[in-house]
């Protein structure tokens, strides 16, 4: 209730002050001026308000004009070409930068999560698979290069009608045929300069191991030899009385593995055979690091991932710093 009266009184005061201000400036119409002058004669309070306003106006008009502290003439370096507005200063909107920072952070978290929960387990799985493949018998990994090297070794082409020249296999066959019922599991020291693979050393005897490895070695590594041996139609291995030319296919093991129980007493080893044996025996040593390179390939996958993570992290930090700086400037 009182507020209504106050507002009405305030509004009335403003209207009176507007009249008084216009009266001071001499801008009232003649009828308005006469009406106001009549009120001024009747109302001392209104007259006092008018005097106060006149005093303020006169005092303001008497305010001194200051001298300039310096000249404000322009130097060429202070201005650009006339008539051209200054290029609008590019203002970065800090909320946009904030959103960009948030998106980059989410992307980084996504990549990190993918690294920890998807890529790393799969890599571990791959590594364990590789290890599992290597662990049962270390010979495939170590023998693989050996097998790969075998077909490349020059094998002397046998003359027509002759048995193929198979260095160690023939030797072993001959030895076994001659040995007859001697214990087959005894080993013979490897040739000089050749190391026996661990798995080969553990091989129990010629027949089971040879059967087991025949598919692997004979079929893949020495197809020509097997074919040639099959073509010779040698009788299956048996006890004594085996033909001297009969060969055991399983003995397509690396030449460094001699299954004959005793060193061949009399062997007709040609120089070609010796060279081939020497080359095959040395081959595994040269190709030994192959399995490690496989692991390196497996581990090279996270490298780009690491780089991506580093780049994203740097992006997040840069955007965050830029956001803070732009926000400070904007405020």
């Amino acid at each position, binding site marked *: 209730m009182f507020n209504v009266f106050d507002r009405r009184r305030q509004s009335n005061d403003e209207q009176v002050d507007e009249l008084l201000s216009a009266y001071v400036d001499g801008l009232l119409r003649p009828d308005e001026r006469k009406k106001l002058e009549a009120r001024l004669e009747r109302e001392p309070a209104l007259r006092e308000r008018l005097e106060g*306003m006149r005093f303020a106006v006169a005092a303001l008009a008497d*305010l001194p004009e200051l001298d300039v502290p310096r000249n404000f003439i*322009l130097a060429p370096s202070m201005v650009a070409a006339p008539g051209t507005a200054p290029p609008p200063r590019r203002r970065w909107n800090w909320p946009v930068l904030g959103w960009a920072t948030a998106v980059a952070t989410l992307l980084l978290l996504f990549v990190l999560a993918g690294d920890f929960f998807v890529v790393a387990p799969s890599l571990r799985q791959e590594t364990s698979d590789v290890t599992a493949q290597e662990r049962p018998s270390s010979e495939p990994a170590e023998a693989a290069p050996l097998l790969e090297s075998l077909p490349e070794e020059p094998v002397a082409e046998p003359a027509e009608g002759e048995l193929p020249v198979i260095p160690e296999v023939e030797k072993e066959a001959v030895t076994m045929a001659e040995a007859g019922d001697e214990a087959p599991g005894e080993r013979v020291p490897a040739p000089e300069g050749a190391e026996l693979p661990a798995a080969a050393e553990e091989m129990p005897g010629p027949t089971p191991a040879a059967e087991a490895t025949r598919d692997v070695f004979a079929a893949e590594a020495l197809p020509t030899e097997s074919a040639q041996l099959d073509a010779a139609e040698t009788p299956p291995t048996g006890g004594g009385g085996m033909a001297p030319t009969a060969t055991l296919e399983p003995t397509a093991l690396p030449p460094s593995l001699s299954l004959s129980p005793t060193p061949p007493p009399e062997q007709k080893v040609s120089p070609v055979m010796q060279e081939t044996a020497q080359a095959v025996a040395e081959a595994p040593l040269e190709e030994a690091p192959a399995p490690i390179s496989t692991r390196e390939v497996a581990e090279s996958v996270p490298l780009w991932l690491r780089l991506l993570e580093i780049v994203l992290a740097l992006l997040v930090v840069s955007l965050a710093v830029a956001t803070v700086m732009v926000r400070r400037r904007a405020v």
Partner: protein
Amino acid sequence: MDEQALIQAAQRGDLNAFNELVLFYQRQVFNLAYRIMGDEDSAADATQEAFISAYRGIGRYRGGSFKAWLMRIVTNACYDELRRRKRRPTSSLDALYVTDAAPGEVLMSDSEGPEAYARRQDLNRTLHAGLQTLPEEQRTTLVLSDVQGYDYQEISQITGVSLGTVKSRLSRARAKMRDYLLAQEELLPAGYRLDSR
């Protein structure tokens, strides 16, 4: 000074011609900025900024009162600076020093005795402080009208508002200034007290 010739030369890129205009108007521009801003340093900055803006934008000047066009630029420069201050309020080290010198203190005239000179300085100080209590638009209108002597039409051009708005702002500013002086009456010199008149 041929103002139009200088303006046209400045529009063609003649900086010397524009500087002639600067020298002619810099006192009025600076005084308006000083009454709006309240201190000399800010007024000097606003004045310099206004002249730079005027030179860069003189190509857009299409005739009329060059003085009103210039005053509008300095008024806008002052408003920009005041808004910047509101966003980032800073306390000036100068404000820590209390000086006896009145703002814009002028030399004593020959016809004025020392006592009258001191009273006038006190009144000037009170008026200057009273101006700073007014809202920006009312202060600008009051300074343009009662300090610098522009008529309503020119004020309307400078401030970019209608004549009615000018009248309304001016009457409110005067009434507030009157009330301020009445409230500060004990600080006013005896000869300037309203009840003693």
